[in-house]
């Protein structure tokens, strides 16, 4: 998240503007809750389309080696295993994704395991001495000579993360996800730079509801706000909001540019 945790605007600020824009000062066709709900939907959509919200979550390593992904997050970005607690982090290590790897009961299955016993296509891998004499294999070890079975990796299945045996040495996991933003009507909870897109989104949705009651009266104004939002085009507040998120992280880009342009690495 590349913005301040202290710079949010209150949903009521948006509400105040939306009811003026849509002739709903008396909140007769739509209720206050309907507009809050639309703010939430707008932020949800922005979460999916811009990945603007990144959340770190810490978990105790599950004894089953299977971790349920919690609610209101999606898209795993980073996974680290570490020992210690929140005050002392030690032996932190990146955990890699392994294709087609699943924990099943006390064991695990994978399309390609270390030994690949009797598999006509995959040879064994690693330096497991028990099979070295009998099975031809591509010997693979990591930089410090560890066998594949000793590596840290995870697989993904039905909203769960499955961790390899070796990961059991970690006491905790730190995982970064993309978050699904939620609006709390009782406190400032909308990022300031989304003010315009949320206002236009809510105005369009309110007018959509009013249009359903009296299409001749409201279609024209609805059309104005549908244009202002321009959900699928490039000339409205939706595209501008996406652009804002994409332009963030200026220092990251500057630093990366500098690093790549040195050419003497």
């Amino acid at each position, binding site marked *: 998240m590349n913005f301040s945790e202290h710079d949010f605007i209150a949903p009521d600020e948006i509400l105040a503007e939306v009811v003026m824009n849509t002739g709903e000062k*008396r*909140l007769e066709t739509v*209720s*206050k*809750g309907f507009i809050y*709900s639309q703010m939430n939907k707008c932020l949800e959509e922005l979460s999916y389309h811009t990945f603007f919200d990144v959340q770190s979550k810490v978990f105790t390593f599950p004894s089953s080696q299977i971790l349920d992904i919690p609610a209101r997050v999606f898209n795993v970005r980073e996974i680290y295993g570490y020992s210690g607690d929140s005050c002392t982090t030690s032996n932190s290590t990146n955990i890699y994704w392994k294709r087609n790897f699943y924990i099943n009961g006390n064991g695990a299955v994978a399309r390609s395991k270390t030994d690949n016993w009797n598999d006509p296509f995959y040879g064994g891998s690693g330096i497991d001495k028990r099979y070295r004499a009998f099975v031809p294999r591509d010997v693979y070890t990591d930089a410090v000579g560890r066998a594949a079975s000793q590596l840290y990796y995870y697989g993904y299945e039905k909203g769960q993360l499955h961790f390899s045996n070796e990961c059991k040495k970690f006491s905790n996991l730190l995982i970064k996800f993309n978050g699904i933003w939620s609006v709390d*009507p009782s406190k400032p909870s909308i990022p300031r730079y989304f003010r315009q897109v949320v206002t236009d989104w809510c105005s369009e949705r309110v007018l959509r509801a009013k249009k359903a009651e009296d299409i001749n009266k409201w279609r024209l104004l609805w059309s104005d706000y549908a244009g202002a939002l321009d959900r699928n085009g490039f000339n409205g507040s939706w595209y501008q909001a996406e652009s804002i998120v994409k332009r963030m992280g200026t220092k990251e880009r500057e630093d990366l540019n500098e690093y790549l342009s040195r050419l003497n690495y």
Partner: protein
Amino acid sequence: MSNTILRYVVDDISKDLKQVADDKKIERAQVAYWVLMVGNRLKSQHIQKRDSGMFLHTYVGVPVEKVASSSNPNTVEGRKRIKLPASIFDFNKDRGIDYISYWIDDEVDCPPEFTNKTFTRTTPKTSAILYMDEYTKPSPSNPYWYLTGMEYVYFLGIEKVDVESIEIGLYSTFDPLTEIDLDAPFDFPEELLNVLKRQVLDLGRFVLQIPEERRNDGVSTTPAENIPTQKLISVNDSVNKSEE
């Protein structure tokens, strides 16, 4: 405050209709009734045309009751409601009720409660949809009201909190004639008084034009010779059939 009292209007019209002497055919009470009847119509049209608080009346401390037992129609056990403190105009979308809010009178230096804990209007049928969304669900911070019948306003969302009374703003009709004070300020737009007077005069004139014989005084005016004295018999009756 209005410069006019109802007595001026009634007496003025009674005098113009020449109905002030002791042999008058239209009583003052009847003229007053007409004034209120026409006045209600003109006032309702006036309120709907203008965004004005002139005829909005606020009632505070209106007690909320929890209905103890059901009775038909409109009284449902266990629901919270108020009895409307005055009769209201039946405007579109219940706009006869301008607002309803929690009202707390023991707080000082706080913004008026009606600005932040207002009830939102709904209807019994559409309220079902409100429960389907977390944000629209009725709750103490997001309460709703609905009108059933002419007397009661029911509430949603305050079932589990103790709300003793509410504040309500109404666009109300004139009180019934039996309760109205002829010498109280007449709660009516001054600029429409001439329209009101004209319409009541038209009404009075029409009534005075109704001929006496249109009225049923209980006396038969049919000449005695025209009153049939024999039983009427059908031409198809066997008595009237010939041999041929």
